[in-house]
């Protein structure tokens, strides 16, 4: 028997819960919890829920973006950024999660799952260092 991955389980939960009323969802949730207990999956609940969140976001065209910067982003910049990201990822909605990190020195670093766009000063300096110390 093929083993079920956490992703498969999350996908299955999404499909059974999709377009269901609140009353139906209560019943489904009970069944899911019983299934988790029976299959000893309760320790994996957090991972499965994370994956479920990703699946729901993907299906609804929501992209969660982590923006790291040295200084707080201005509203105008945020708007521009969201507009650009909506275009690039063909998303209906962008959820921007901002983090401040002084070590970045300046600029901004965008993280969308495993993709990054690094426009920070720290990264530029690192690239310059690589350029100057390369073997000729």
């Amino acid at each position, binding site marked *: 028997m093929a083993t079920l991955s956490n992703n498969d389980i999350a996908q299955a939960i999404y499909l059974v819960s999709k377009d269901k009323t609140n009353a139906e969802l209560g019943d489904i949730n009970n069944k899911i919890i019983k299934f988790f207990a029976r299959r000893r999956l309760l320790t994996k609940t957090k991972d499965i829920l994370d994956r479920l969140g990703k699946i729901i976001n993907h299906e609804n065209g929501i992209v969660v973006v982590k923006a790291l910067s040295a200084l707080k982003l201005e509203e105008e910049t945020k708007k521009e950024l969201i507009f650009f990201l909506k275009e690039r990822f063909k998303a209906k909605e962008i959820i921007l999660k901002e983090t401040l990190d002084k070590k970045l020195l300046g600029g901004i670093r965008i993280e969308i799952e495993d993709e990054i766009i690094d426009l920070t000063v720290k990264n530029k300096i690192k690239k*310059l260092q690589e350029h100057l110390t390369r073997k000729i």
Partner: protein
Amino acid sequence: MSTNYIVENLKKEIDNFSAQITSEKIGHVLEVFDGIAKISGLGDIKSSEMVTFPGGETGVALNLEEDTVGVIIFDDFSKIKEGDEVHATGKILEVPVGDSIIGRVVNALGVEIDGKGVIKRDKTYPIEKVAPGVITRLSVDKPVATGIKVIDAIIPIGRGQRELIIGDRQTGKTAIAIDAILNQKGQNMICVYVSIGQKDSKLRKIQTRLEKGGAMAYTVIVSAGSSEPAPLSYIAPYTGVSIAEYFMDQGKDVLIIYDDLSKHAVAYREISLLLRRPPGREAFPGDVFYLHSRLLERACRRNQEYGGGSITALPIVETQAGDVTAYIPTNVISITDGQIFLETDLFYKGIRPAVNVGLSVSRVGSKAQIKAMKKVAGTLKLDLAQYRELEAFSQFGSDLDSATREQLERGKRAVEVLKQPQYSPMAVERQVAILYALVKGYMDDVSVDRIKEFEEGLISYTENNAKKFYKEIIETNMWSDAGEAELKKAIEEFKNNFS
């Protein structure tokens, strides 16, 4: 160099620098152990793609799973931490190559380790490549002269052939390979010696030996020592063959030695088990045959349309207590075009090289011999096989008829002639002369313990007194009637004076 000059140059470099804005896929280290890392993320990574870690360490993605990527690390993995960012390079693992690599010792990543300065490289070659197809190939018919009588006469190796050297430990497997390299002087051949999981002291000894024999002028050593991580041992033969392919692409003939593939299989087994791939026979993974077949298939002889050139491969496999039916030996035997089987018993009997003529075979056969050698060595293998059989009978001490006795005597002399000390390869024309004397019966009345003395004397005498014979073999690969007569006369003269 003035400070101003340095500052100006730095300014110029900084002016020229422009950081490209790119989006890249990254991963994060989940766990690191025994030279293996499990990485999350890296969504678009390819199999065998190179990745880099924050400390500059490199690795290659081998296992692409649903959520994680299994990476083998080529450098010291002790500085890699959980959560470290891993970048995919988009490149399949490559090694730098160039003409100046000749005479150097490099590691499995192609980096020089002999302390003789940086090697200038022109190109990089991917370490994994699909072997040349049928259309580009030519059948093997040009010999690789190893300088070892028993091999050149009985188990000839051709350019583009794959001949396995197999035997227990301490039977002279490496010695044969090193002799073959030493004999390539002036033969228009580039040699690549790949040392896999060997002791550094052994490698140093080999390097010194090759330097002493002037062989480093056409040799490259690729080393993945036993103290280095298993991933380096795993890629070393592929690095070696990529270097060989660089020279083959220039139309050159290359001889590559993999010393040895049993250790290579063991390194691959270690990686596979750590990557949790299912173990099979002897705990080797299921694709261990493909591991060696794809490596050895890259040995070939190209036709002129595709630039000529060839790669001759001499893989070495170590057996345990002479067991050739173990997993790796049987695999490699079936992949290669023949094997040279070395035996401990023969080695301790003083028959060195300890080649078991009965079990050794070259599937290319006499096509890979010059005409003169074909003529003298034609019946030698059969004679020796018959001798071994009769030798067993003669143990009973019963009376033997004269024909049998003659065969036994000839066999004893043949065994004696085929003995050869290490590091003393013999030119093919000399081999022909000595084997001619043997098969034509000139040695039948020389006592067995004086055969070596007779051989040495005969060679120096005939070289001076049968110059035409030697010249003809060098130039035309065969003797004429006149040349043969001259040799016969010289042998008879020498025999008369030999006491």
